[in-house]
């Protein structure tokens, strides 16, 4: 009996190692794969390695990269019209996961990541952070394979904090005090946050959770909850009192750009923006940037995945690309460019440890990762519309409108949208 087990085990091991060696990377040689990518630091980090994939597999990559808003619109339009011309694409499940899963537009990746035949033996799915994998699941479907994950954190100017004796804020009260102290010092604004309508909603989420509120309650919009109103008043108050001019036109490119130009003392946004603000090529304050856990301690986690269109005629090739892009080597590569990787193992590689001169960032990101909530968006199908409704309220409040009134309006609009969902 014992012998038999051993025999099977040996056989299995030999088999799988044989498979690893004979995994046919060139099975789809000659295929052209159309891939839609978001203009995102992950894309910037990976792009230069794409020729390696083409060489390995003989597959030709036809990639297109768009700025985020257009990217989302483009993917939505293509999938909704059948998605036959689209093979692989980037997806943030927290935004479109539910709609795409329920509409049947994306492949369920469960079958791929666990397959012994489709997947190279050394790929190692178990290496992915389970919380990150879970954040891709909607309506019982794994909507994509994670490529990077962001937690919201605080970015601050170490030099200014030191010069004016400001301690790193841990609570929202301390955050406001710090913004107040630093506002106007050395020509900087106290704090920058997203104020541009719908794009602001996701970065407002940690503030909402910190005040103890939620997006929905019993399937209905919860924007009139006093705690929600309080959080919104606080968030917009920070911007109005200590924020930069034109805050209501700012999404993350503007916020990070402003910080990189040394015109603002701190901002809270996704951890991945270290790659912009701490890089001497794009930032005049590189090296002076401090990182800390999200004040209020209720961070959100946003995952981006590579996903496969249900209508794709090249699913096999698309999976090869997804698999390759998320293997250990490539995850290690993106992490070296400060894109938060989703595989546990790569955070411990000597190369990263040697490069990570300011471990504040790694620490803040990884400690937050386990507890962060993936619900940075309201869990509905029509996320775009709901974000838009709430975004209108945010812009209105930033312009001096009444928070309670505007949120009530957004609340009603959202409930109308929800009533149309199945």
């Amino acid at each position, binding site marked *: 009996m014992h012998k038999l087990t051993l025999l099977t085990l040996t056989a299995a091991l030999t088999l799988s190692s044989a498979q690893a060696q004979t995994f046919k990377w060139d099975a789809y040689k000659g295929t052209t794969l159309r891939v839609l990518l978001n203009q995102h630091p992950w894309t910037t980090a990976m792009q230069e390695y794409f020729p390696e994939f083409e060489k390995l597999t003989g597959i030709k990559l036809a990639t297109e990269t768009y700025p985020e808003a257009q990217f989302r619109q483009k993917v939505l339009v293509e999938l909704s019209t059948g998605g036959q011309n689209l093979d692989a694409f980037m997806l943030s499940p927290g935004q479109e996961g539910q709609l795409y899963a329920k509409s049947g537009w994306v492949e369920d990746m469960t079958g791929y990541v666990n397959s012994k035949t489709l997947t190279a033996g050394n790929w190692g799915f178990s290496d992915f952070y389970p919380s990150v994998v879970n954040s891709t699941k909607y309506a019982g479907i794994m909507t994509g394979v994670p490529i990077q994950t962001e937690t919201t954190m605080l970015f601050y100017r170490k030099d200014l904090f030191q010069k004016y004796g400001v301690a790193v804020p841990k609570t929202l009260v301390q955050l406001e005090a710090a913004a107040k102290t630093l506002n106007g010092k050395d020509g900087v604004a106290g704090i920058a946050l997203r104020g541009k309508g719908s794009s602001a909603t996701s970065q407002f989420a940690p503030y909402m959770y910190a005040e103890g509120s939620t997006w929905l309650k019993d399937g209905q919009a919860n924007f009139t909850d006093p705690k929600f109103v309080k959080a919104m008043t606080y968030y917009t108050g920070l911007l109005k009192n200590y924020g930069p001019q034109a805050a209501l036109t700012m999404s993350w490119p503007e916020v990070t750009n402003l910080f990189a130009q040394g015109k603002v003392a701190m901002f809270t946004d996704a951890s991945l923006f270290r790659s912009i603000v701490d890089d001497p090529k794009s930032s005049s304050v590189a090296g002076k940037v401090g990182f800390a856990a999200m004040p209020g301690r209720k961070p959100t986690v946003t995952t981006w995945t590579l996903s496969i269109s249900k209508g794709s005629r090249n699913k096999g090739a698309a999976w090869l690309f997804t698999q390759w892009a998320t293997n250990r080597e490539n995850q290690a590569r993106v992490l070296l460019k400060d894109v938060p990787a989703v595989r546990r193992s790569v955070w411990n590689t000597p190369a990263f440890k040697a490069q990570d001169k300011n471990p504040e960032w790694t620490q803040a990101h990884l400690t937050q990762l386990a507890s962060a909530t993936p619900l940075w968006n309201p869990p509905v199908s029509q996320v775009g519309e709901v974000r838009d409704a709430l975004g209108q309220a945010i*812009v209105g409040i930033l*312009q001096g409108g009444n928070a309670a009134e505007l949120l009530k309006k957004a609340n009603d609009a959202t409930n109308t949208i929800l009533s149309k969902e*199945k």
Partner: protein
Amino acid sequence: MSLAPTSTPAPRRPVSGGFSSWLDRNIRWVFPAPAMIALMVLTILPLAFNLILSTQERSVSDALPSSYVGLGNYSAALKDERFWNSVKLMFQFTGIAVPLQMLCGLGLALLLNRTMRASGLVRAVVLLPMISTPVAVALIWALMMDPNLGVLNYFLESLGLGRSLWLADSRLVIPALALVDLWQWTPLVSLILLAGLQTMPDEPFEAARIDGASPWQVFRFITWPMLQPAAFAALTLRLIDALKTFDIIEVMTQGGPGTASETLNVYAYHTGFEFLRVGYTAALLTLLLVTVAVVAVGVNLLRRRA
């Protein structure tokens, strides 16, 4: 319409060849027919389809059901604050841009008529704004209007005026966009008026000169009455096009901040291609079409009376 092969006069003389004589006899409907059929397929059919769509509650995703709602989308639009906001902004934009264009266009036309006799180079320069790609125009103006780094704020400051937020200020965004439209389309108005000026007979002006009329009197009683047809043509064109303005707004502000520059067609574009609310979008588009048509007809009625 003369599409039917009715009372075609017989050809002046017999022409050899069956087909070519048939063609000659029927030329007045054979010649326009292909173009008219093409226009029918490309414009009338889509419009009809649009009308049908507007009676449906429909989204492209199967996660959201579709159904016939009659005039439901229209009544929803009439109750939609954002719709009314977009209508208001559309008229605001037009109301600022077009009158200024008419005035500046008239001034420029008179200038061009008086000086240099509109030499080739000057005319080419005047042409540039209106034939430039709107996307490029919008990008450049957006850069110039940047609140932090834009050159327009530099000019304002040099003149001792304060900085402006331009597109980031929800009260200024429509005038700022109208300014771009003014820059882009004043030349068209002036060229149309210039064409009108240059076809005027010399005699009345001669007579006025002999009578010792002041320049203002000449303009008021001679030039302007003769210029009116051209002015009305320019006005009609500009009104219609200003109401339809899309490229510049979508590229420069996407309707923002918030909805402060979301005119009706920008709003319809967002509901259609961002939220994929097909039925509602179709209803908005129908309302837009009706509005533009009413304005076009209205201006023409006014012209008849004038």
